[in-house]
């Protein structure tokens, strides 16, 4: 999955031209300080952004089918 020129904006966060390549299998760690936009970014990718490109149509179909079933793990604040 490839994200190109994504735009994330709310009251605190202004992210422009976000380009991320998730096409390699593996673990991607999105990290940053509090309020930097980690959750907003992943929510934008999973639920709002519709221009993600996939290597195979099967992947796009699987992504759209499971879009409402993504796992959300809420953990207590560390430190």
């Amino acid at each position, binding site marked *: *999955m490839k994200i190109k020129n994504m735009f994330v904006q709310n009251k605190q966060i*202004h*992210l*422009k*031209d*976000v*380009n*991320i*390549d*998730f*096409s*390699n*299998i*593996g*673990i*991607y*760690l*999105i*990290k*940053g*300080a*509090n*309020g*930097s*936009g*980690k*959750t907003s*970014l*992943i929510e934008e*990718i999973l639920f709002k952004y519709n221009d993600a490109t*996939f*290597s*195979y149509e*099967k*992947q796009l179909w699987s992504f759209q089918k499971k879009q409402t079933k993504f796992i959300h793990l809420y*953990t*207590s604040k*560390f430190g």
Partner: protein
Amino acid sequence: MDDHSVSQFIDLIKELSRSKTIIIVTHDPRLDSDNYTNIILKRNDVIINCNTINKNKINVGYQDKNKTNFIKLGVGLFKNYINFITLFVTLAVILMLSIYTQLQFKNGFSTDEIPPENVILSYKGEFYIDRVVDACRAVCGLFVRN
């Protein structure tokens, strides 16, 4: 999460990441590793730093689409001394099997003594004995030993 749960979680996602893409949103430093692709968001900054330092890169989403590289597979046999020992033992077993097979073949053949000069035919068997003996006697008139 406590440290034990974090270690279990890391083991779980490592197992899953062999065939899946996993995106983790966290600021827990216990999950920091150079083996992951780190996407760092900086506050008051619109730049996202993608450190693509994933050592186990697979370029295509589905593993069954990848072709097996037999050259790399063969070279990998010599990277580890255990693999080298396994190869050596396998070759030794093949060699012993071939020697054993050769011995079996040798034992299967006739070990009769070489006949003397005045004997022109040596044979074993019972079915055509009479016909062969009669033919030899008729044509050559020589003694034929059983």
